[in-house]
């Protein structure tokens, strides 16, 4: 991000943002926990950039709810008073893709491409919570094409596939593993049919679901796909000529050697 003119400042003392399993258990508790993170950013006077779709949507929902609903805001601030914090509603929550598209801009990204990814067939998985529900995202207005536009800006070819807008199955992990795997299996089969070089996600959870998921599916459902999975930021690094090394490459459960070789 610094190479694109974005300075990132760590938020000290943040907790987990309250993904959907947490929201499900207690409405007010979730609002207060997520609002605590928002307060930290407010004190720094900086907007939040979330890499993860779940963090993004959770923080965004809480920010919007507390900005517009005074009764709930008072209730949450009463809870936050035990840690000497108060929600004011002064910062915005953005996803990394929002920052790349809106703040950096596609033109600047195109200019920063040192090694265009020509000939690379890329399928994109945006991840539900960057784009749905639509009503929540009216201000920024991202659709499923957001990642295709970014991939195209790097010189690669975005490939369409069946069920592109369907969930990866990740949220059911640890709740109903069987269903979760079957959902991914369907998507991976569609990706295979589309004959893609790799699938690129905007969400780290979709990334895990496809990457780790392929190993599980191989063992338990006896289906083998070998489709490399990358987070968009990794693809961006390749295009900008930033070398990924040792631990970053080893982290992939499905080898991405074929991509590294193709781009070498």
């Amino acid at each position, binding site marked *: 991000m610094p190479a694109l003119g974005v300075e990132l400042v760590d938020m000290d003392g943040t*907790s987990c943002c309250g993904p959907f*399993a947490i929201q499900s258990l207690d*409405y007010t508790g*979730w609002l207060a926990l997520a609002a605590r993170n928002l307060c930290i950013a407010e004190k720094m006077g900086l907007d939040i950039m979330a890499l993860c779709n779940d963090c993004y949507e959770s923080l965004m929902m809480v920010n919007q709810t507390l900005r517009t609903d005074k009764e709930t805001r008072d209730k949450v601030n009463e809870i*936050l008073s035990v840690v000497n914090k108060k929600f004011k509603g002064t910062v915005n929550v953005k996803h990394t893709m929002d920052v790349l598209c809106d703040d950096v801009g596609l033109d600047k990204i195109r200019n920063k491409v040192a090694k265009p990814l020509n000939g690379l067939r890329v399928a994109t998985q945006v991840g539900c919570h960057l784009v*749905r529900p639509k009503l929540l995202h009216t201000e920024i207005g991202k659709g499923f094409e957001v990642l295709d536009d970014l991939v195209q800006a790097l010189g690669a070819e975005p490939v369409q596939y069946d069920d592109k807008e369907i969930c990866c199955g990740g949220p*059911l992990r640890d709740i109903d593993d069987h269903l979760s795997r079957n959902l991914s299996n369907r998507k991976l089969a569609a990706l295979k049919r589309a004959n893609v070089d790799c699938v690129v996600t905007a969400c780290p959870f979709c990334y895990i679901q496809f990457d780790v998921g392929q190993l599980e599916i191989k063992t338990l459902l006896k289906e083998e796909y070998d489709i490399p999975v990358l987070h968009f930021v990794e693809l961006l690094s390749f295009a900008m000529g930033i070398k990924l090394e040792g631990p970053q490459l080893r982290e992939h459960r499905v080898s991405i050697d074929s991509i590294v070789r193709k781009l070498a």
Partner: protein
Amino acid sequence: MHVVANTPRGEGVLSCIQCGRCAGSCPVGRLTVKYNPRRLVEMVNLGFKWEALFELSWLCLSCFTCIDRCPQGADVGEVVFALRSIGARDGNIPKGALTMARNLVETGHIVIPTASMSKQRASFGLPPRESVPEVAKIARKSGFSKILGLK
């Protein structure tokens, strides 16, 4: 029905017209006959036993496709949150969700890093992850800890 409608995020049950557009849009519904979002709202409105509703409500992915397509703004994708929270008050929480929630309250993070994860963080040049005691204070004050069976 009124209990659900009066729980945060549950008011949608009042405006559902049972058109079934959610059921046709649901990725879980494509894979299993167990889960049908239209039917779930119908069960709420007919007064089915809570136990049946809690279990079904946890099969929703929260992909929110149904919310984008509902012509009534009944938003069954939101209603499931009301159902789950009503269940949680009586201790009906799936094991996976309970572990995550307890981890969050006790450490500030839903996943407690294993030794290999900590080693991996170090290999990326990241500092060890610190716990966040303020979370427990907030959880106690809001009543969240009590729902989780914590002090």
